[in-house]
C-alpha cells in the first residue's frame, strides 16, 4: 500500500515534473503570469495526463513497438481536443485566458514522457496514480510560480489586488518567469534532499 502512496506522492516534490524533471517548460513559463492561470493550466494538464496514462496503460499490449509514438500522440491529441471543447462549453473565461496554451498540452513533454516512462510498463491503477501525482505536482509548481509572479508583478493574488498601482512589471514578463523559476528549482531540490535525508 505504501508503494501505491509513493507512486502518487513522488510527483509532488521528489520528482516534480516542472521543477525536478524540468519538463513542460513552455507552459510553465508562458502562462504563469497570474496564479489563476497557473492553477487552471495545471488542472487542465492533470486531466490529460491522468486519462492518457490510464488509456495507454489499458492498450499497451496491443500497440507494436515501432508505431507506439503515433499511437500515443493520437490518444493525447484527442484528449486535449475533448478538453478544449469541455472548457469552451463550461469554463469559457478560463478558456480565453489560457488561449493558445491549451492545444499546446498535446506537445507538453510531461504527458508523452509519463506515457513512455510509466504507463507503457505498468498496470492501470499504478498508471492512474502516477498520472494524478505528476499532474498535481505540475499544478502545484505552476500555481506557486504564478502566485509569486502575480504578487510581485501585479500586486494581486488570484485577481484580488492588495494595493493600488503596479508591481515590478518585470515579473509578469519573460525575465521574471525565468528568475522565479530558477529560485523555485533551487528551493525544491533542497527540499527534496532534506526529504531524502529524513527517510534514511
Amino acid at each position, binding site marked *: 500500500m505504501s508503494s501505491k502512496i509513493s507512486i502518487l506522492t513522488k510527483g509532488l516534490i521528489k520528482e516534480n515534473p516542472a521543477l525536478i524533471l524540468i519538463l513542460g517548460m513552455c507552459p510553465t513559463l508562458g502562462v504563469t503570469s497570474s496564479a489563476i492561470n497557473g492553477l487552471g493550466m495545471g488542472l487542465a494538464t492533470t486531466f490529460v495526463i491522468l486519462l492518457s496514462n490510464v488509456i495507454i496503460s489499458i492498450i499497451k*499490449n496491443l500497440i507494436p513497438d515501432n508505431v507506439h509514438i503515433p499511437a500515443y500522440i493520437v490518444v493525447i491529441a484527442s484528449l486535449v481536443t475533448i478538453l478544449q471543447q469541455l472548457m469552451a462549453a463550461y469554463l469559457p473565461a478560463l478558456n480565453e485566458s489560457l488561449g493558445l496554451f491549451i492545444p499546446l498540452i498535446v506537445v507538453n513533454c510531461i504527458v508523452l514522457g509519463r506515457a513512455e516512462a510509466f504507463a507503457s510498463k505498468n498496470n492501470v491503477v499504478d498508471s492512474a496514480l502516477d498520472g494524478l501525482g505528476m499532474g498535481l505536482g505540475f499544478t502545484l509548481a505552476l500555481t506557486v510560480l504564478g502566485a509569486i509572479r502575480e504578487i510581485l508583478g501585479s500586486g494581486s493574488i488570484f485577481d484580488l489586488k492588495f494595493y493600488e498601482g503596479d508591481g515590478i512589471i518585470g515579473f509578469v514578463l519573460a525575465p521574471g518567469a525565468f528568475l522565479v523559476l530558477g529560485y523555485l528549482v533551487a528551493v525544491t531540490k533542497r527540499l527534496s534532499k532534506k526529504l531524502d535525508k529524513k527517510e534514511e
Partner: protein
Amino acid sequence: MIDKKNPTIAQMVIVLLVIAAVCSAGVATVYAITKDTIAETNAKKLQKSLSEVLPEYDKTDTLTVKTANGNAFCYIAQKDGKTVGYAIKSSNTNGYNGLVEVLTGFDQMGKIINTSATVLNETPGLGQKALEPKFKEQFQGFEPSKKTLKVKKDGGDVDAISAATITSRAYTLAVQQAFDALQTLLGNKVDTHSGATSSANPNSDEREINN
C-alpha cells in the same frame, strides 16, 4: 496476440486504424454534446458586450461590411422601430499576442458610446489593462470625426497604457477600423462641421470601400 517486436504490416495498420477511429468517435461525441452549450455561451457573451456599448435597444439587425482590413460585423440597434445606435466588431492581429477584437458602439452622430474588447489575450498587468476603466474611459464620448484615433506617440489623441504601446495601438486601430466600417455603412462621411450624418438606410447586405 500481437508480437510487439515483430508486427506484420497488417497488424500495424489495423492497430493505428482502430485507435484513430475510436479517438475520432470520442471527439465527435463530445463535440455533439457541447455544441449547443458553446453556441449559447458565445451568444450570451455577445449580448453582454452589445449592451455595454449600446444604448437601450429591443432588437438588432446584423450586417457584414467589407473594409480594407477585412470584414467588420455591424449590429444596428433599434428601439421601437427606430435606429438608436451602431455596434461594430472589428479586429486586427497587431496585438502583442496576436488577435485583438473590439466591439465599438456609436451613436447616430458617429460619436463613440463605449468600447468592449471581445478578444484580448495580452500580457496580464500590461496589455490586459486595456480591459480596465482607466484605458477604456477615454473612448467614451470620443468623436473620431474631430479627434484622431491613434496613440499620442503616433500623433493622435489616445493615451496608451504605459509599457504596453503595442496593445494600445492594436486596440486603437480596431476602433478606427470600426469607425471606417461605420462610414461605409452609412454610405457617406460624417459631416465634420456639424457632426450630423444623413440617415441612410442600408438596403443591401454588403458594401465595399473603394479606396
